């Protein structure tokens, strides 16, 4: 086998390379080492913290093992149990409402000739730029005791389930919309032509062709919205009043009472529905088969004035509500003293005079978001590259892929509390990270790892494995192929990942709320803390600073992508 090194690899089928025993090249060793390193890194950052969380839930305050005693205590506390039903019902109703609204919206965007589609699409994505708290704050200005439209609630209070559901629907809408747009974009026109040739009525076509085609997208959306709402804690914290949910209970136990053991118990309870939804979603996606065969004809929407204008009215209403939510927060942030002194001023932007960390928090957030974008996209891209391109050792690649999928099922709060136990443990050599910017960056990258991983994996899959085979036969080292071919081709996807990480780092509360320290105060946490101290107008102001920053970043990203597409993606067009 000593000559195996010189076997021209092009004679080896690309996929079946492992079936022929060839001597491993240096590149192979390097990539395998890389696999092992990334797997261990993720194991340290994902698996071990979860283990410390689990073991903490079985300990008493002095660290003695007490078995299930904490759980027993938990299930005997009625106030805590109410939170479970509260959480489930709020998440359920939000999922149903968002599903219906986002489906109609996505349908209008993808299947009709409705005017201003691009504008509507843009407006619906606004909530992504803001922390979930913004919606709750804005609702207080619209429907709170001093709210402009208080009378619309017919005496009901916005503080409680109504407010939580309304605010949740707002901030999860874009997440639902994006999946549904993807689900509705792929349609085979031949089915519709056949249905029309058979004179099938419109509503029947909708029920028998359109809906079944988007079935998996719809289910997936439902699960994702459910998980997002049940694990979010910003909204119920701001507008929940005395309506407690699981996420706020975790926070209350950990921050309010420093009862870390009970916090661990509640967060494990919170983990259950999230994991269940994750598994259900995976199952649904595995059922999904390619709808578009090679012979499919892409669906081209036709103009139908009545339907299009009805949908235009619907979308305009939603878009108007979205703009009103953002606009009210923006307006309120300039009002000197709501509701008694409505003159406009910049007083609320004087963050240095308020609880919450001041302007420093804002700049910390930007710094953290940049670190996340740079280090996170690098690590994640490298990881997915290994999963896709390392030759052989498919079991190692599968392990890496599985660990990379895990964070999607772990709520940010749960990850955060697990990090406290893991990094704050006196014996942990990584303990020096505790209380630093580093731990915030790590927890944010890990929290948003999965989606980024999948994005770059998709991009890598577009590349024919032939590239590697050819370069192997030409004896080109793997890093050169990586730098000359893989990286340039995947650059837009890499930028997407970086941008995704940046935006989420700017807006996340859950992943960092247990981990920040006085020096590493963040803007999103400042919003939370200012609201907590009763300074709601400055909280709105800080939330808007996040929105402005995210919007500018998005714009830069779009411009850069366009420029790069022109430079590196010319090959895509003929």
């Amino acid at each position, binding site marked *: 086998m000593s000559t195996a090194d010189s076997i021209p690899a092009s004679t080896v089928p690309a996929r079946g390379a492992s079936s022929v025993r060839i001597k491993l090249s240096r590149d192979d060793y390097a990539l395998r080492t890389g696999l092992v390193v990334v797997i261990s890194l993720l194991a340290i950052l994902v698996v071990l913290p979860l283990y410390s969380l689990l073991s903490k839930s079985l300990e008493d305050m002095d660290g003695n093992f007490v078995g299930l005693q904490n759980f027993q205590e938990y299930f005997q506390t009625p106030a805590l149990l109410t939170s479970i039903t509260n959480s489930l019902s709020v998440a359920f109703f939000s999922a149903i409402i968002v599903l219906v609204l986002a489906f109609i919206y996505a349908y209008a965007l993808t299947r009709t000739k409705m005017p201003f589609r691009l504008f509507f699409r843009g407006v619906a994505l606004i909530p992504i730029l803001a922390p979930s708290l913004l919606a709750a704050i804005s609702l*207080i200005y619209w429907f709170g005791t001093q709210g402009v439209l208080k009378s619309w609630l017919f005496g009901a209070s916005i503080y409680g389930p109504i407010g939580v559901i309304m605010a949740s629907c707002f901030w999860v809408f874009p997440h639902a919309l994006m999946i549904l747009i993807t689900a509705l974009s792929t349609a085979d026109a031949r089915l519709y032509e056949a249905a029309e040739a058979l004179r099938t009525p419109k509503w029947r076509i909708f029920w028998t062709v359109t809906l079944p085609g988007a079935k998996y997208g719809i289910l997936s959306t439902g699960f994702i919205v459910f998980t997002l709402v049940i694990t979010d804690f910003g909204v119920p914290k701001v507008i929940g009043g005395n309506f407690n949910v699981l996420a706020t209970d975790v926070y209350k136990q950990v921050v309010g009472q*420093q009862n870390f053991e009970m916090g661990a118990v509640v967060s494990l309870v919170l983990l259950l529905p999230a994991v269940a939804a994750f598994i259900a979603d995976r199952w649904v996606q595995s059922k999904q088969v390619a709808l578009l065969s090679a012979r499919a004809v892409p669906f081209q929407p036709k103009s139908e004035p009545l339907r299009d204008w009805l949908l235009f009215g619907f979308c305009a209403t939603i878009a108007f509500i979205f703009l009103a939510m953002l606009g009210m927060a923006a307006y309120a942030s300039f009002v000197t003293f709501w509701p008694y002194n409505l003159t406009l001023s910049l007083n609320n932007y004087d963050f240095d005079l308020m609880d919450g960390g001041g302007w420093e928090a804002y700049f910390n957030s930007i710094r953290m978001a940049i670190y996340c974008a740079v280090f996170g996209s690098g690590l994640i891209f490298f990881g997915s590259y290994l999963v896709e391109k390392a030759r052989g050792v498919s079991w190692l690649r599968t392990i890496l892929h599985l660990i990379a999928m895990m964070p999607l099922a772990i709520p940010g709060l749960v990850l955060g509390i697990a990090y406290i136990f893991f990094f704050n443990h006196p014996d942990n050599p990584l303990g020096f990270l505790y209380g*630093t*910017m580093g731990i915030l960056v790590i927890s944010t990258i890990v929290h948003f790892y999965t989606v980024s991983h999948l994005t770059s994996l998709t991009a890598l899959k577009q590349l024919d494995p032939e590239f590697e085979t050819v370069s192997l036969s030409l004896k080109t080292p793997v*890093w050169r192929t990586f730098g000359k071919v893989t990286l340039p081709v995947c650059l837009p996807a890499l930028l997407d990942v970086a941008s995704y990480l940046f935006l989420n780092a700017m807006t996340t509360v859950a992943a960092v709320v247990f981990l920040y320290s006085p020096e590493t105060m963040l803007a999103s946490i400042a919003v939370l803390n200012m609201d907590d101290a*009763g300074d709601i107008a400055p909280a709105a102001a800080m939330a808007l600073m996040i929105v402005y920053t995210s919007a500018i970043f998005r714009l830069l990203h779009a411009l850069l992508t366009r420029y790069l597409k022109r430079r590196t993606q010319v090959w895509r067009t003929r």
Partner: protein
Amino acid sequence: MKNLVYTMTQLSRGVLGVVLGLMLAIPVSAENLTVYTAVEAEDLKRYAAEFNKDHPDIKIRWVRDSTGIVTAKLLAEKNNPRADIIWGLAATSLMLLQSEGMLQPYAPKGLGKLDSKFRDSANPPSWTGMDAWIAAVCVNTVEAKKNNLPTPTSWMDLTDPVYKGHLVMPNPNSSGTGFLDVSSWLQIYGERGGWQFMDNLHKNIAWYTHSGSKPCKQAARGETPIGISFAFRGAKSKAAGAPLEIVLPKEGVGWDMEATAIVKGTKKLAAAQTLADWSITKKANVLYNKGYAVVAYPGVAKPVKYFPAGILEAMIDNDFEFAAVNRKRILAQWQKRYDGKSEAK
């Protein structure tokens, strides 16, 4: 071989770069003093700035939260304290920490000049007082009128069903203001009468807030017409233009001291002592007086704008011993009875 080395370098850069790069982001500084506090955030910058005028070499790292949380945090870190000194925490909390053996007794320079009520009676004292903060009820006059609410004059008035859902107070488990209210009611009405009163009050409370100033800030914004909070907060909101009336219930109002204490086991004892010395100077007390009508240094106090008149007479004869010794029991009892209406945190 060169390739391998190169590739390995690339690999380790990719992986370790994350960790190492982040380490660079950690600021390094020489004399950092970690100070735990429950003082209002807007005052902290001023306190640190004034202190640094005299001692520019000591940099204060504030860890600020509500009284209950700072207390819980200190207790949780008992075996591995992270604080060097506590500057501005309720005396009842400090007395609790003292009984846990967590404080380092120290007689700051100039101790003799303090009002003797404002220090631990032991010698050397475990804590020295700064100022007193006093309960008060913030009533939004505009909203009270809108809802036809009479202005309450006593604590008992607040149990009138007319106020149902219009009342907010801080959760004593997290807020020092909330705790001094509860402890004062138990002292005014006795143990049984006090809980009876709170049962009735509970029926009117919309929700319990995490922070002690939030009820007054909410009243100031008209979000809830009446907030049980503290006088200084009310005066500040009034100065900001809120239509507030600051009511001192006629049964008397609870109060607590803010105080300073050095944490036992600090590695920066000298710096902590410097701060403790400074915290009882006349200069520091003038600073405290910006927000507190009653300060530890005799003769310093000047009237605070919008501070309700007659507040010194309204202060109850507070039994700190009672409050500190029973703190844990009272809070557990409170939580069992009323926590269902608590705001998150």
